[in-house]
């Protein structure tokens, strides 16, 4: 285990090692959903929640089941199944007990299973050899960082709605260029904390 303070990991994964801006994870839903602040905030919440729980779940599954059995190479399949099963479970629970939450969050949950950021966090945490608390901090931090980026992007996209954009760049093109500029801005944080 590497000794890094979980708090350092938490802040690093929000600002300096942001999932979207430095690891390119979760781009698909980032581009597709970032057109409205309210929806992107809901999606961000859902992603943060799922990230926080699946990082812990996958940590436990990996270290308590896969490692003792020597089945580490199966981790891709197992992680995907854990994530998909968990998302399904959460969807059923909130549909049954928290109806209002279901209408604001529910539709995004199936989208999350295929969000690269979720699987990415689980894989990164194994490669970097985090312990349980570090993994949890990493999961929550990554989720918040992702939310921050998508909400900021939704705000910017709203502002440029009336702007004159070259025809070929409309939609995804301009979003990627803005993301580039945003990533550039986030590089300014890189002196504060650093992991890896």
């Amino acid at each position, binding site marked *: 285990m590497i000794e890094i303070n979980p708090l350092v990991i938490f802040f690093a994964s929000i600002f300096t090692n942001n999932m979207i801006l430095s690891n390119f994870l979760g781009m698909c839903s980032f581009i597709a959903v970032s057109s409205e602040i309210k929806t992107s905030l809901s999606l961000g919440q859902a992603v943060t929640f799922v990230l926080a729980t699946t990082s812990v779940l996958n940590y436990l599954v990996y270290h308590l089941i896969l490692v003792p059995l020597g089945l580490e190479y199966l981790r891709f399949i197992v992680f995907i199944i854990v994530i998909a099963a968990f998302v399904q479970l959460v969807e059923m629970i909130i549909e049954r007990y928290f109806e209002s939450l279901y209408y604001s969050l529910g539709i995004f949950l199936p989208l999350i299973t295929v969000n690269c950021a979720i699987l990415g966090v689980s894989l990164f945490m194994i490669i970097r050899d985090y312990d349980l608390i570090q993994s949890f901090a990493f999961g929550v931090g990554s989720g918040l960082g992702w939310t921050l980026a998508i909400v900021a992007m939704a705000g910017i996209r709203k502002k440029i709605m009336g702007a004159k954009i070259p025809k070929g760049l409309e939609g995804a093109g301009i979003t*990627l260029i803005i993301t580039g500029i945003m990533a550039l801005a986030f590089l300014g944080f890189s002196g504060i904390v650093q992991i890896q």
Partner: protein
Amino acid sequence: MKEVMRVVKAGIYKDNPVFRQILGICSSLAVTNLLTNSFVMGVGLMFVTAFSSFTVSLIRVFTPKHIRMMVQTLIISAYVIMLDIFLKAYFPSMSKALGPYVGLIITNCIIMGRAEAFAQNNKPFISFIDGLMMGVGYTIVLMAVAFVRELLGFGSLFGIQILGDGWVNWTLMIMPPGAFFMIGIVIWASSRLFPKEDQEKGGAKV
């Protein structure tokens, strides 16, 4: 034969997964700072897309409709695991350099997208070609981005120094923002080079 040609064209430019469908950029922009890395990533993706499309198509008659997503995911994961073990065994340094991004091929939307949109309704052979060609189209874009990034960022191509000592490396190019700018420019350029024939296919962005 005609159908094969149509699929080949679709994969390489007409429906190119990256600049036309905006799919699968999530897991792979990170490897485009070196040509060698993106080449390996591209070939790996070609392998996984081709064979998972083939398998999905082979068992499409037996797969119950409502659990097909799960079945597809499992098929894709199986091929990705093969790829991962292969890279670890024969190219350990490459496997280290690509890190978690090999595993992230599973969530690459291209593969799932092709399985769902093409392999589910077509014969195995043509699905295989379709998957392969989508992989080729993807690799071409990846290599184009990596070409510019490595040349400007390191002054080299495939690790061989091209630009002389007088060249000052553009550090920006090898950092994440460089990738975003480059892919944006590729999308822009491609929309000028291959203008859309039928506007708004819709539903392509996932």
